[in-house]
């Protein structure tokens, strides 16, 4: 449903700029529009780097952002009006990375500064924590190839990145920048198993940066440093590799009977021409990796992307996209019928 009167149409014009596209340049273009002034902050409150965005079943959405006061979690209604802040001053908030909403509308955040996963109920109260904020800490650097895992124990993370759940409620965490694994917990937070070491072989990971689950409980891991999406089954056995879609900074599997996989080959945060030329687009795929189309490019204007860090795809034709460098969430209306070469 496109409200053309109010919206800035982008569509083909971006592609016509003739930039060099390293990633599947022949993929069909998906037309889309970005709703102007979608996310509305109250006077005196500011959004920071929007690392995570997720809707609940009512269409309200949460934005986990790096802000002046450490890290903050904001809630907005479906029209983008600010509702409230959750967890102000929380001990687990230091350096935001992801927010996701589970099937019961619980809100889960992943904080790579405190190495914690925190579950809030819909009212915003803390229901469960996994991992623990180190008692004393310097932000650890990403280890080089072959670097040892500094904190790879069942219940301790090393800069974790994302979270997902299977239909049984088991919890999956991508971990992360300093660890290189996917960890599985039962619904009560007890460790069940893990997969991954740092590397580029099958089953190895280089910054597992984003994750989403399908209805069968398969795990789609955005293996960003290896520029591929690795798919594992529910027991974390390797299933398949999806490549040719750039570096998957953000992945999202839509719900419903026909599930789609979105993956963002985000432009990097340095604002270089090269990053605009070679990245910035989001792909829409079948779950097997077949590309349906692509859209978008790096940039600061409405409808362009400033380092996409999270995608919400509860409705695969109405995405919410969180960006690091532009401090915003955009609502994108995709026209699934308007794809073409």
């Amino acid at each position, binding site marked *: 449903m496109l409200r053309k009167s109010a919206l800035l149409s982008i569509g083909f014009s971006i592609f016509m700029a003739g930039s060099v596209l390293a990633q599947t340049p022949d993929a069909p273009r998906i037309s889309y529009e970005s709703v102007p002034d979608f996310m509305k902050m109250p006077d005196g409150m500011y959004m920071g780097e929007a690392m995570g965005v997720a809707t609940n079943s009512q269409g309200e959405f949460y934005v986990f952002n790096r802000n002046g*006061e*450490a890290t903050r979690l904001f809630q907005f209604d479906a029209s983008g009006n600010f509702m409230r802040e959750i*967890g*102000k*001053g*929380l*001990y687990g*908030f*230091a*350096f935001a990375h992801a927010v996701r909403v589970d099937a019961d509308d619980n809100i889960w955040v992943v904080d790579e*500064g405190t190495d914690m996963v925190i579950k809030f109920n819909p009212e*915003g*109260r*803390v229901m*469960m*924590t*996994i991992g*623990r*904020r*180190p*008692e*004393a*800490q*310097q*932000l*650890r650097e990403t280890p080089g190839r072959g670097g040892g895992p*500094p*904190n790879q*124990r*069942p*219940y*301790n993370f090393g800069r974790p990145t994302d979270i997902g759940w299977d239909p049984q409620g088991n919890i999956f965490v991508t971990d992360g920048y300093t660890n290189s694994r996917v960890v599985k917990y039962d619904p*009560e*937070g*007890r*460790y069940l198993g893990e997969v991954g070491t740092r590397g580029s072989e099958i089953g190895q990971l280089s910054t597992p940066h984003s994750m989403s689950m399908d209805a069968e409980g398969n795990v789609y891991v955005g293996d960003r440093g290896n520029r591929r999406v690795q798919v594992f089954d529910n027991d974390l056995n390797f299933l398949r590799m999806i490549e040719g879609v750039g570096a998957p900074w953000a992945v999202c599997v839509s719900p419903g009977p026909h599930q789609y996989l979105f993956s963002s080959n985000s432009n990097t945060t340095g604002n270089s021409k090269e990053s605009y030329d070679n990245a910035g687009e989001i792909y829409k795929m079948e779950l097997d990796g077949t590309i349906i189309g692509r859209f978008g490019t790096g940039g600061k204007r409405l409808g362009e992307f400033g380092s996409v860090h999270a995608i919400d795809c509860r409705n695969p034709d109405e995405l919410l996209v969180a960006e690091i460098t532009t401090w915003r969430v955009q609502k994108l209306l995709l026209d699934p019928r308007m794809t073409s070469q």
Partner: protein
Amino acid sequence: MKRFLLAVAALLVANPLSAQSEIRYEAVDALSMPDDIYMGEALGVATNSSGHLYVFTRSGSSDVTLGTNRFFRHSSSRLFEFDANGRYVREIGAGLYAFMFAHAVRVDSDDNVWIVDEGSSMAVKFDPQGKVLMTMGRNPEAYRNPGPRGAELRRNNGVGAVGDNFSRPTDVAWDADGNIFIADGYNNARVAKFDQYGAFLTSWGEYGTEIGQFNTLHSIQTDAEGNVYVGDRGNSRIQVFDNDGNFKYVIDGIGAPWAICITPGPHQYLYSSNSAGTGNLDNGEIYKMELDGTILGKFGRAGRMIGEFASTHAIDCRDENELFVGEILSWRVQKITLHP
């Protein structure tokens, strides 16, 4: 409040090797917070004589940054008061200079509220209204960054340490005369005794595994006769001393005593928690004992659900069958009703 009745407690025994009898119990989430205030790691919990609860927590700080050469920020400890129904009453000491990294809160017989902060290496006594009455130790003027996970923290042996130059103290207790006993602590390894006005009397202990030596004195209590019970966590034992620090006996076989509590009243009992570490969900059971260490029973196991314990760090046992348990990992205080 969520209520979780452990009707078949035997199913939840974490350690099948132990033959001690299981104590049946119920657990509820004891506290209700205002919408805009969040509990952090619940390091300390204590009741006063009217049932009010004090919780000393490692909570947020609006100016926390990573990668600095200061490792704890001011105001990252918070002290909350709740009424006997668990409803939030107020915050005490917001922004206090000693509030850096919470470790313990205890309430004395006059309802004064004492906190021990291992970040500032201070003990602070508040009157029941929340005014500071006495401070012990001093917040260091500057800190050395201990590096990731505190690996470089010093191990002082504590020998001959005098005065109140604490180094990451952990807990406080008093005898019937009002003398003050401080467990000191992570870096020192001694019990320090002061008179009721805070003047230093004596200290004993050093780092090690022998009798009279300590490896992280983590919790301390006294009984009605003034004997001193020290949770010697790293050595997985409770050491008992008389009022002057003369060794009396050891209680072991109960895991690592992270949190100990001695009940008041004519027949005193000793509770001790063999808590899960902060990186696992092992153990977690709490033992009920006579003061001589005879085990009467145990209950609980590690976990994140109501009725389970995620790194128990403090026990309040003013009522021997109605305990309050503060946990590190689950950011909560549970009210435990025992049916022994």
